[in-house]
């Protein structure tokens, strides 16, 4: 749920608006350094993907359902900078289309794009470094990052609320309620983020930004005939993926994934 207008007072909203502008501006700069002319289409499609993914409700407990926040997912898949831009644009469009307050946009971007995507990616990179350098670690690290990032974003909201909340709720109660709920949401987010990342890892590992270093570190190797790749499978666009993962999943997955129309 996004923060609506008037929940946090005007000076605090303006201050966090400045934070959001600075953060997103920096992300635009860094993303441009990485993939100058690809930024627009990729971030745009990634934003469309996050927008769609947020509409996918998954069941939580007792008949209620929640939806994905997608910060860590986007950051792990397309990188922290593009991911943050995508989330910020999603929030901006949603606020223009009447979801989340216009004056609270800075707060929402700070919580979900800066803390959620940039902070989430930092956590992800940290956890990945601690885990063994193998492909399954990517999904595990993204799960841990998602699990922690969701309560962290809730924590950012609590800070904003403490600075400029317009309601005299006891802060301890707000902290308890927000963290309690968001730990639960974080579990769902972690499960779905990890499952999504591991699917992409098994199908197109070259698309997972967070696995770049891992893949670069791997070298092509000649395997004994029993494990050899049948000819005609590893070529073409899957070159970066070649020789990495079990070929059966790779082949079927690619067929499933490339059945889309232009």
């Amino acid at each position, binding site marked *: 749920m996004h923060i609506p207008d008037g929940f946090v007072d005007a000076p605090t909203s303006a201050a966090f608006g400045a934070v959001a502008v600075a953060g997103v501006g920096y992300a635009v700069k860094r993303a441009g350094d990485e993939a100058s002319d690809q930024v627009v289409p990729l971030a745009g499609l990634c934003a*469309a993907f996050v927008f769609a993914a947020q509409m996918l409700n998954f069941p939580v407990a007792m008949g209620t359902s929640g939806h994905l926040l997608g910060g860590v997912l986007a950051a792990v898949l397309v990188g922290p900078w593009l991911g943050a831009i995508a989330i910020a644009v999603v929030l901006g469009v949603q606020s223009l289309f009447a979801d989340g307050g216009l004056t609270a946009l800075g707060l929402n971007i700070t919580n979900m794009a800066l803390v959620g995507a940039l902070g989430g990616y930092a956590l992800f990179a940290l956890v990945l470094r601690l885990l063994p350098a193998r492909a399954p670690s990517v999904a595990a690290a993204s799960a841990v990052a998602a699990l922690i990032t969701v309560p962290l974003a809730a924590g950012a909201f609590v800070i904003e609320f403490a600075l400029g909340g317009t309601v005299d709720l006891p802060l301890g109660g707000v902290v308890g309620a927000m963290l309690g709920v968001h730990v639960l949401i974080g579990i769902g987010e972690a499960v779905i983020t990890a499952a999504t990342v591991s699917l992409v890892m098994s199908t197109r590992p070259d698309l997972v930004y967070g696995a770049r270093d891992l893949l670069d570190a791997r070298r092509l190797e000649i395997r004994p005939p029993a494990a050899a790749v049948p000819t005609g499978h590893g070529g073409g666009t899957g070159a970066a993926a070649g020789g990495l993962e079990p070929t059966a999943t790779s082949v079927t997955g690619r067929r499933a994934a490339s059945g889309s129309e232009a």
Partner: protein
Amino acid sequence: MGGAHVLDPYHPGGSVLHRLPAQCKIVATFGYVVCVVLTPITAGWAFGAHLAVVGGLCALARLPPGLVLRRLAVELPFVAFAVALPFVVPGERTEVLGVALSRPGLEQAFGLVARATLGLMTVIVLAATTPARELLVGLERLRMPPVIVAVASFMIRYAGIVIDQMGRMSVARRSRAHEPRSLLATRALAASLGTLFIRSYERGERVHLAMLARGYTGALPGALPGPAPRRAQWGAALCLVILGAAIAVLGRRLDLGAPA
């Protein structure tokens, strides 16, 4: 979730507000929402005045009341939160229908709902009278960084396609007897999501190549040509903001004058 209206909240019409250039409407909307947020919650009448102004805007744009009410439903979870406030906010108690409620809690709940609703209504008027494409042009004219505008325009253009694709995948899942009832169903949903990401990304790559083939060099061609807003149109936008500011200032002044 009302996917259709989230993507295309435009309500075609020929009213004055529909004809106003987007940049004027964006400035007026933002300014007015800021005024609403700055109005002190203790000045109840000021919110009545705001409601009259925003209601007048809805009428001016000839928006059906049902449409506005349906779109206001977005804030229902938030209203539920506000309803709980009088019970949990500490402070002086007052008797309402035999239940002891907190007086500051009641005031704050009112302020919260009033501000959120008015802000939302103002944005609903903007979104219902301005096609998404014009909104983006307006933002660009207001010196929004072109990268952000371009990303947003891509998102709006392709979100429909991506959502349709998701819908087709959902049909495919259900026709294979998939019923999402428990957390176990997450696996299938996540697999769909992963596939959806790959398809979106590959579409992004294809679109990028198509753009390169048409001479894209990293900058989108300039905004659509349109007449610059006339002075009277900027004046109309300013009038709205001044009206909002007047209500906010009056509310604040009268509020300070009254014994707290």
